[in-house]
């Protein structure tokens, strides 16, 4: 793959987004502008921005690859991630807009006053966003190694980190929103183009397309990608699938960087409209993953999805691996290249190369980088709000401090979080950290979602309950992941890769038991007010 065209296209994207950042930096000089773009983002714009914030490169490249290799089982991720928005729509978007100011902790500590709840809510936000951020930025290194093999990964990670900091620090939420909107547009056009081109290859006959997907042959034999069980098999596989499904479908409603987007719109109605647009856009994208993935499986073939080595490089590799010599020699003679090990992440770029040549491949690579940039900018902004607004202002300074200080601390927090993420990602590059995304969803579903729902609907719910619930959800998901096969391999003490099926009930039980232990009159007294605010929008932040 040639590096130059994709670097040029990526530079054009960066150029446009920097102009947007310059414009945005002149629009607002308050912390409210920094965190919420002065709540002037429209519902349609916010819907695009949510789609841009949500669909990461791990989703675009990863899910396409999982569908290409495992068909139906890979597509399960797409289904869960779309259906998850119903929970956001019905349960959190509107109440959150009506009762919160800048952060998720605002919603929780509305009736659960005091330092404890806010501190733990901020800790949970920081845990989720940092894990997610590192997963994305380590992904930059992996992506560079795959798509632009001669480009140094340390430079790429640092470059992406610096750009993300420029957007956030100078442009705040307004610039971040527009970066996400532009990226969502690019990503949607690219995936639709790939999906349509893939079906065109079968003369636009869906019957022929799916027939081809139902008997895909590779060196491992023929498989039907439309059947379940290729990735998750046996009873453990079934429980894994259910546990993953639970975390996917509930986790989105607790992801701080998605929830923060609802503070950028003027009203609860606009919050609802933005979820509606996001569900249309994200849904179309996830449907396209099915066509991209099955297209890659049928048109490129599993045996050819991976890093390709040509000529001298291939010969050197074959010489170093005598065990595979015969098979690889034959590959090289027939195709002119070898694929030493399959890598599903390359399904989308290789499909692009098959369907549209080097131009489309370069475009897909550039879009993948743009995708990461938009997601990490949103995450950094969210982490900085949890640190500056929740920890610094509400806990350390007790709500005192002027606007200049607030804005300065918010920017300094973004710089710290971004710097930390760059350093950690460079240290961890080359490791497979994909499990961190699953971990972020599990923590969000287990620590945040039960507490958000109980705070909004249970009069008796108490501070002790909120703290116990969040800690139980956070600790159980972290501990179970640490004991699971993704960290411990074959010696795992916990058999499932996703802890959701245990940790989500743990978070809920913690919250209920904590509440039943002692009454919290203050929290009960605030319940009526919270309910009126959440339902009518009276007294909502403007």
């Amino acid at each position, binding site marked *: 793959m040639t590096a130059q065209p994709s670097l040029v296209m990526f530079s054009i994207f960066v150029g446009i987004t920097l102009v947007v950042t310059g414009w945005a930096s002149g629009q607002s000089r308050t912390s409210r502008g920094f965190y919420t773009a002065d709540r002037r983002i429209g519902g349609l714009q916010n819907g695009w921005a949510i789609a841009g914030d949500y669909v990461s490169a791990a989703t675009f490249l990863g899910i396409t690859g999982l569908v290409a290799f495992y068909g*139906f*089982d890979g*597509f*399960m991720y797409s*289904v*869960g991630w*779309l*259906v998850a*928005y*119903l*929970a956001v*729509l*019905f*349960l959190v978007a509107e109440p959150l807009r009506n009762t919160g100011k800048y952060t998720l902790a605002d919603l929780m500590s509305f009736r659960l006053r005091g330092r404890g709840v806010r501190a733990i809510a901020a800790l949970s936000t920081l845990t989720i966003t940092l894990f997610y951020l590192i997963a994305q930025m380590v992904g930059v290194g992996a992506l560079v190694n795959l798509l632009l093999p001669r480009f140094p990964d340390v430079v790429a990670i640092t470059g992406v980190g610096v750009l993300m900091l420029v957007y956030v620090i100078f442009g705040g939420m307004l610039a971040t929103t527009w970066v996400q909107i532009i990226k969502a547009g690019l990503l949607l056009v690219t995936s639709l183009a790939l999906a349509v081109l893939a079906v065109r290859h079968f003369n636009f006959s869906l*019957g022929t397309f*799916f*027939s081809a*997907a*139902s008997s895909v042959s590779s060196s491992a034999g023929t498989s*039907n990608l*439309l*059947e*379940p*069980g290729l990735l*998750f*098999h046996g*009873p453990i*596989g*079934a*429980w*894994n*699938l*259910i546990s*993953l*499904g*639970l975390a996917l*479908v509930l986790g989105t409603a607790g992801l701080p960087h998605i929830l923060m987007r609802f503070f950028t719109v003027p009203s*609860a*109605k606009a919050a*609802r409209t933005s979820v*509606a647009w996001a*569900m*249309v856009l994200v*849904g179309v994208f*996830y*449907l396209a993953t*099915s066509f991209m993935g099955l297209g890659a499986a049928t048109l490129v073939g599993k045996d050819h999805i991976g890093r390709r080595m040509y000529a001298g490089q291939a010969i050197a590799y074959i010489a170093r691996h005598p065990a595979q010599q015969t098979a690889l020699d034959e590959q090289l003679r027939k195709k002119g290249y070898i694929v030493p090990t399959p890598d599903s992440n390359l399904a989308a770029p290789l499909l692009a190369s098959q369907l549209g040549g080097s131009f489309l491949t370069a475009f897909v690579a550039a879009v993948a980088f743009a995708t990461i940039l938009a997601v990490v900018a949103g995450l950094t902004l969210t982490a900085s709000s949890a640190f500056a607004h929740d920890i610094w202002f509400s806990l350390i300074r007790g709500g005192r401090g002027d606007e200049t200080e607030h804005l300065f601390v918010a920017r300094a927090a973004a710089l710290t979080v971004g710097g930390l993420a760059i350093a950690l990602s460079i240290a961890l590059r080359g490791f497979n950290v994909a499990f961190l995304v699953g971990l972020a969803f599990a923590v969000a579903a287990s620590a945040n979602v039960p507490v958000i729902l109980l705070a909004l609907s249970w009069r008796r719910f108490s501070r002790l309950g909120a703290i116990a619930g969040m800690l139980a959800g956070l600790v159980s998901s972290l501990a179970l992941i640490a004991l699971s096969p993704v960290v411990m391999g074959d010696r795992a003490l916990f058999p499932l890769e996703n802890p959701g099926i245990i940790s989500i009930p743990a978070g809920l039980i913690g919250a209920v038991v904590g509440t039943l232990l002692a009454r919290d009159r203050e929290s009960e007294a605030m319940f*009526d*007010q919270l*309910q*009126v*605010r959440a*339902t*009518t*929008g*009276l*007294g*909502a932040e*403007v």
Partner: protein
Amino acid sequence: MDRGVHPRWESLSAEPEFRALLRSRRRFVVPATIFFIAYYLALPISAGFWPKAMSRPVLGPLTIAYCFALSQFVMAWILLALYLLRARQFDLAAARLRRRETREVLESK
């Protein structure tokens, strides 16, 4: 609303019109949530425990499992449309309550 206005939260929460709004919201949201979670979880449960049965092709080469997965998109979009339709009434009722409360609080000052 005006920042200087402090609504009377407790009395408002006891009002029949507010209780009615709360009830009609719940009457939609609670069953809809139970339905979508059940409909969604039926997919990983059936695909995980009965992969053979779910592999039967029903629509050309498309298996039951794949059709079920695609139907989740339709389900999500239909529930979205139904909610958007119902929410218009919620918006009207909420706006009525907001207007009245703001006026009454201002008058009582």
